């Protein structure tokens, strides 16, 4: 099963986005592991993730994290994050994994 890991400062606000994405994945009959981590857990995240997405509050760490992991890393669009748009963020993750 592929894993999508979302990173934010404490993994708190992002966990709601995770549940929205899980709901969307279920509706599409996709078997995916989606979880939120804090950025202090980037090494753990890189062990399980097929793709990593960053919340707006940690976007400044994008370049650092890119250097540390071998999977695709991107920042989540601010509007999609602000609207908790699970559909759009799931699409972004799938696209990065080459599954869309």
């Amino acid at each position, binding site marked *: 099963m592929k894993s999508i890991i979302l990173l*934010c400062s404490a993994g*708190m*606000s992002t966990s*709601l986005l995770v549940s929205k994405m899980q709901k969307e994945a279920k509706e599409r009959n996709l078997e995916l592991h989606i979880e939120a981590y804090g950025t202090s857990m980037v090494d753990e995240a890189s062990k399980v993730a097929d793709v990593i997405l960053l*919340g*707006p*509050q*940690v*976007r*400044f760490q994008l370049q650092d994290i890119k250097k540390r992991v071998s999977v695709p890393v991107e920042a989540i669009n*601010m*509007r999609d*994050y*602000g*609207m*908790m748009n699970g559909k759009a963020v799931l699409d972004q993750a799938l696209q990065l994994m080459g599954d869309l």
Partner: protein
Amino acid sequence: MQGLELISFEIISSVGMARSCFIEAMRKAREGLFEEAQSLIKEGEGYFIEGHRAHTRLIQFEASGEPLVLTILLTHAQDQLMSAEGFKIIAEEFIHTYQKMN
């Protein structure tokens, strides 16, 4: 998603972007890239204003007598707002300092 929850996320997302810009600005200044640093401060200010507007809506909401339910999420949003505000001041000071050193 309920109104209050949506506004909380709007704040978190906007001021989160602002804070990221302010931190990136300090890093650019550290590398001597002062124009880029300044434009990141400007970009961050734009995002911060968006977050601030959302926050103002909340205050108006409360002032109109609507009961405002205090959630962890809203507390987090206010915390992020404060953090972004503080980072802007720090970033500007850092840029000045790096300019003097340059």
